[in-house]
């Protein structure tokens, strides 16, 4: 083994930040747009003021700074969907996504608690991620422990005696789409969906049985409609009592009106069917999250036009709700016409950079490559209402893109440069700083004297 020239010198060519109002033309790369233009074997993408100006084969405009990306692959920036990014630093210390407050369920808006300075965000960028869909975690149904020496996580400890705490609220709260630039303006859009856990977790919120939760939800939706139609009477106390706090009633109006989707965390085929029925009866927009047994009713999901967020690598019967889990879930759902978005292990946070590997694994198990790319780019963008801004390489969209050394799903490919709104992102992380501090253990002074 011998040491190579550090890549940093090479990367510096890519990561020089563009001057304000500069026009940047990236040439020579294979452009995979995830948009109507499909894939251009060698294309030119022109960026100005943070936006994509053009995508095509035309020569760079005069005066543009030209960045030669010959031999590289250029994709839209990837999405971490169903993510905890910005809301967790050390899992054991908790996250800012789980609420157990009877007054604040649907009204919980996680965007208020996000931290752009989280060290997880730069690490996620090194996986080619430029956006995340951050979703609330149902109390008692979330990633309770996130601790993976696999043995003494909270789940394992409680596993000896009893169940996870019963959630007080039917609704986990509202998600947000964020850009992973680590800046104060990281929130692209809030209130992008209201999360509810179904199945065993939802049964606890309903008082102990699945059917009770569904009945409780139907009653709540009726109350919210009554609230929306009789708001002034309710305000003056001239209307009957409604089952939720005012904040929650307000938050649920867009849900019952079909403007904000219900994000249903649901796993078992029978439970998915029950959720599809509920959404149809209540005329709700629905997104399924989890859906490990979704393949068993793929046609019903497709016919309902319901998109699915799933983790492509979930294939073991870890609970009685996912006995039918298989690595072919994504391929089968796609074949039936279901729109997919991919999450990553443990809430796509510390391990968010594995999003692209999950996509590749789905391809290995039968999903067409382009469908896998869509599931980590344009599909989540559209599902959560930012498809007009990002998720594909199209003129007018934010210049969120990644220049890869090769196939973006391959572990041996690396992002050479990551752009968010036209800004080249620093790919230094706390982890690369540690690496560089300890790479050579010799030297007269302790490592503590080495830092940038």
């Amino acid at each position, binding site marked *: *083994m*011998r*040491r*190579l020239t*550090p*890549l940093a010198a090479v990367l510096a060519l890519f990561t020089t930040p563009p001057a304000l109002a500069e026009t940047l033309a990236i040439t020579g790369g294979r452009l995979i747009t995830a948009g109507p233009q499909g894939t251009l074997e060698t294309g030119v993408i022109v960026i100005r003021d943070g936006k994509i100006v053009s995508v095509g084969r035309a020569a760079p405009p005069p005066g543009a700074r030209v960045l030669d990306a010959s031999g590289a692959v250029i994709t839209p920036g990837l999405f971490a969907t169903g993510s905890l990014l910005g809301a967790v*630093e*050390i*899992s*054991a*210390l908790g996250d800012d996504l789980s609420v157990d407050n009877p007054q604040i369920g649907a009204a919980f808006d996680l965007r208020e608690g996000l931290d752009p300075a989280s060290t997880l965000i730069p690490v996620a960028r090194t996986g080619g991620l430029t956006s995340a869909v951050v979703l609330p975690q149902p109390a008692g149904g979330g990633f309770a*422990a*996130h601790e*993976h*020496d*696999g*043995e*003494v*996580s909270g*789940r*394992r*400890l409680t*596993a*000896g005696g009893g169940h996870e705490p019963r959630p007080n609220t039917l609704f986990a709260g509202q998600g947000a789409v964020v850009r992973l630039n680590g800046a104060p303006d990281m929130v692209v859009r809030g209130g992008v969906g209201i999360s509810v856990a179904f199945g065993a977790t939802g049964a606890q919120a309903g008082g102990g049985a699945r059917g009770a939760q569904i009945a409780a939800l139907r009653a709540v939706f009726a109350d919210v409609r009554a609230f929306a139609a009789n708001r002034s009477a309710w305000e003056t106390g001239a209307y009957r009592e409604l089952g939720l706090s005012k904040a929650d009633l307000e938050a649920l109006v867009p849900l019952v009106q079909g403007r904000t989707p219900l994000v249903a965390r649901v796993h078992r085929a029978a439970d998915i069917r029950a959720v599809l029925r509920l959404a149809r009866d209540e005329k709700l927009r629905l997104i399924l999250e989890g859906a490990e*047994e979704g393949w*068993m009713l793929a046609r019903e999901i497709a016919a309902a036009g319901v998109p699915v967020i799933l983790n492509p*690598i*979930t*294939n*073991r*019967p*870890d*609970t*009685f709700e996912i*006995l*039918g*889990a*298989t690595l072919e879930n994504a391929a089968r759902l796609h074949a039936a016409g279901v729109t997919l978005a991919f999450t990553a*292990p443990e809430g796509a946070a*510390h*391990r968010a*950079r*594995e999003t692209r*590997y999950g996509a590749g694994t789905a391809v*290995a*198990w039968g999903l067409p490559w382009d469908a896998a790319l869509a599931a980590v780019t344009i599909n989540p963008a559209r599902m959560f209402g930012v498809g007009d801004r990002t998720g594909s390489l199209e003129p007018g969209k934010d210049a969120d893109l990644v220049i890869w050394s090769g196939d973006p*799903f*391959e*572990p*041996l490919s*690396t992002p050479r440069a990551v752009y968010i709104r036209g800004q080249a992102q620093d790919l230094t992380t706390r*982890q*690369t700083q*540690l*690496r*560089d501090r*300890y*790479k050579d*253990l010799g030297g007269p002074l302790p*490592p503590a004297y080495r830092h940038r």
Partner: protein
Amino acid sequence: MPRPAAWTVALAALVLSSCATASGAPPKARPGAAATKALPAGLDPVARQDAFPSTYRPLPSAPFAITGARAYTGTGAALENATLIVRNGRIAAIGEGLPVPAGLETLDARGRWITPGLIDAHSHLGVYAAPAVPAHSDGNELTDPTTPEVWAEHSIWPQDPGFNTARIGGVTTVQILPGSGNLIGGRGVTLRNVPARTMQEMKFPGAPYTLKMACGENPKRVYGSRGRAPSTRMGNVAGYRAAWIEAADYVRKWDDYRDKVSRGEKADPPRRDLGLDTMAGVLRGEILVQNHCYRADEMAIMIDIAKEFGYRISSFHHALEAYKIADLLAQNGICTATWAGWWGGKIEMYDSIEANVPLLEAAGACGVIKSDDPDLIQRLNQEAAMALAAGRAAGLEISEAEAMRWITSNPARALGIADQTGSLEVGKRADIVLWDRNPFSIYARTETVFIDGAIAWDRRDARYQPRSDFDLGQPGEGAR
């Protein structure tokens, strides 16, 4: 890295005695115990160390050859147009373009890759079986911080569907460990990853036992939260040392007893103690310490404890900060079994870097990629690829053939079975994975997994696609 010679000899002795027991021959008397009058059954700690003997029998196989493959041999080498010949479950020949004897069944593997069967040095399959219901939580005996008397093998449920999915991922050998809630958590065991009715049918014949120890947050949190020791890291260290003092004293008592008996003096035997038997086995070099430890400073302390009491640490597990003391680990010949991309679950997991194993490799230390997870165990090749990419990004030139050692021969070394498996070399067990493409590709899938020369899994032949009892009659019938 050469092993201390004495240790190798001790290991070889254990392998021999275990094999003999497994084949039904009477246990060999230990040197120095020759004159011992037989103690009543169950009271002599060394008379029947193999109390739960392996009943492993290889699956049916016939001699065959693989030709035209590209190979990562697990020794750090890559071969083009490789021929590999298997007879009697062992590798009989391997090389580039070797002739195949007439009449030998031949698998044309042009365009495909072969590697050794993968070895996972850290798994809880069977002891935390799927489905993860409370009744399957069998990996942590959290009733006392020091439980060397428990053996992971007594918790293993062979019907855990995770064994099958791990095999599809190419894993042919797996170490099952107790959890990390205790300072000394109990014995680990190494298994052949074959479908079986009993744990004994999976037990790797002659593989040394291991002892799980754990540093850091877990033990102090578990017991500190109960208002008892340990509640601090210094409490952890006091706990290990107290346990080793007991073990040393136990060894002394037995040595005294045997000395007296050999001199013909009347002597009362010490009372046998299961936990101290295990710890004495470590002090004799027969049982290999597998030490869960994240932080660099704690690993350095554990190395000193090992020296204080005269035992060896075979590997540190998780060890996310191993790169900070790569030199120390190399000097002490200790392997590091870790991930590439896992971090941040606890504060002691905060300083993870993806290039941990590559930096260890660069320092001449033994790096192992392991799973500790029933999902990751299905994709050890991907995790190794992530580590490799991180090493290259750090400016290290590491070949794919070298990186393959992290999931084959290096874990074999950490488990004391490198003479048996972990590389494609003549005489080794024919544990072989046939991949449809380069295993460092995300798209790679196993086509056939051979264990001791027998087909244990075949992607295209339903006769070789085992399913757990648990999966029968369930949605999907266990087609994962």
